[in-house]
């Protein structure tokens, strides 16, 4: 009786492995294209990207792009191969569910220079304005994330303010009618940047050494 099950099982396993092996290269190519596109979007000017992993010693080392670890950052490079900045993932609870987004950090500007929502289930027409509202996205053209002199925290943690009240470069203007989603975005960025920037900034060199490899 078990012969039949085992037989079917073996056949199934074969089929799965076969399909997996055939589709894997295609899927991986698409994935990296997708990621590349996202990175380029949050790092205007970038033309290629590479993944880096934060090691336990606090260094960054190059890793394969399908690494599923969660301590990854992506470096973006322009045509000449020089570093444009880093793309970092952040996530947090929004209005309806967890929002995941990618933001671009520029070493030169010491600022966040772009964001892109990877995943959200916010209300269409309200919460999803964080992806499309031009006014809101303008907050991220140059969002100040300078570090303190000690280099271990943001000089001005990112602040959320009511729509139209932005007066400092580290403030984020909310979206009227979607206060919660836009505030969640700000909170996410503040926490994530406060954690990552002090770690990546001193190690800018780690990213430049591998620029040729991508």
């Amino acid at each position, binding site marked *: 009786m078990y012969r039949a099950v085992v037989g079917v099982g073996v056949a199934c396993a074969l089929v799965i492995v076969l399909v*997996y092996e055939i589709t894997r290269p295609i899927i991986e190519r698409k994935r990296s294209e997708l990621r590349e596109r996202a990175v380029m979007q949050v790092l205007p000017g970038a033309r290629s990207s590479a993944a880096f992993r934060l090691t336990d010693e606090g260094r960054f080392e190059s890793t394969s792009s399908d690494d599923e670890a969660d301590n990854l950052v992506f470096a973006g490079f322009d045509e000449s191969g020089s570093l444009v900045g880093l793309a970092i993932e*952040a996530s947090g609870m929004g209005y309806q569910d967890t929002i995941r987004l990618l933001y671009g950090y520029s070493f030169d500007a010491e600022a966040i220079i772009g964001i892109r929502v990877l995943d959200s289930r916010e209300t269409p027409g309200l919460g999803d304005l964080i992806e499309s509202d031009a006014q809101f996205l303008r907050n991220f053209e140059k969002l100040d994330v300078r570090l303190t002199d000690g280099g271990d925290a943001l000089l001005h943690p990112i602040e959320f303010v009511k729509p139209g009240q932005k007066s400092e470069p580290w403030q984020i203007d909310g979206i009227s009618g979607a206060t919660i989603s836009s505030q969640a975005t700000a909170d996410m960025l503040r926490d994530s940047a406060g954690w990552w920037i002090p770690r990546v900034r001193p190690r800018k060199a780690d990213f430049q050494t591998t620029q040729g490899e991508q």
Partner: protein
Amino acid sequence: MSETSLWSIFVNACLINNFVLVYFLGICPFLGVSEKMPTATRMGAAVTFVMLVSSVCAYGIQALLVAIDAPYLKLISFIAVIASTVQLVEMFIKKMSPVLFRALGIFLPLITTNCAILGLALFQTNRGYGFAQSIAYALGAGVGFTLALVLMAGLREKLELAKTPDIVKGTAMALILAGLLSMCFMGFAGLSK
């Protein structure tokens, strides 16, 4: 990065993103076993129980699959392991507590191959929950499922004697009620900040 607190995971799975009313998982038993309040309560209890079991299973399998680097076996092993574990637990309960078995037993086979159970396993691995988080998630999902089911049963029982137009009877009525309940649950949005 999954530092979300257990409480917020629980509230999220139970109220804000209720499995049945928001994620649309387990609709079939939701529509099928929500006509009588006592049955609904017991069904809910059974689902919660199976969810806990399968959450633990899924946590173990995922760890194993990552170790042997065989992500393509995820689905097939989830379903196989969950189904057989539930079967084992069922036999165990039958031996240990016939009363409990009579209360929950008839539902177990129905639930084993149910999308809420598998969905739970898939979601918790996709979100990279740790062990305690997985348990909180399973508990939240189970309690949320029970809540939806029991509320639904109350409403359907109340409507049993109503003079509803003929075309609304049955599944259509259940869907309308589910839609209204789903709308009620929208009020919980934002609770788990």
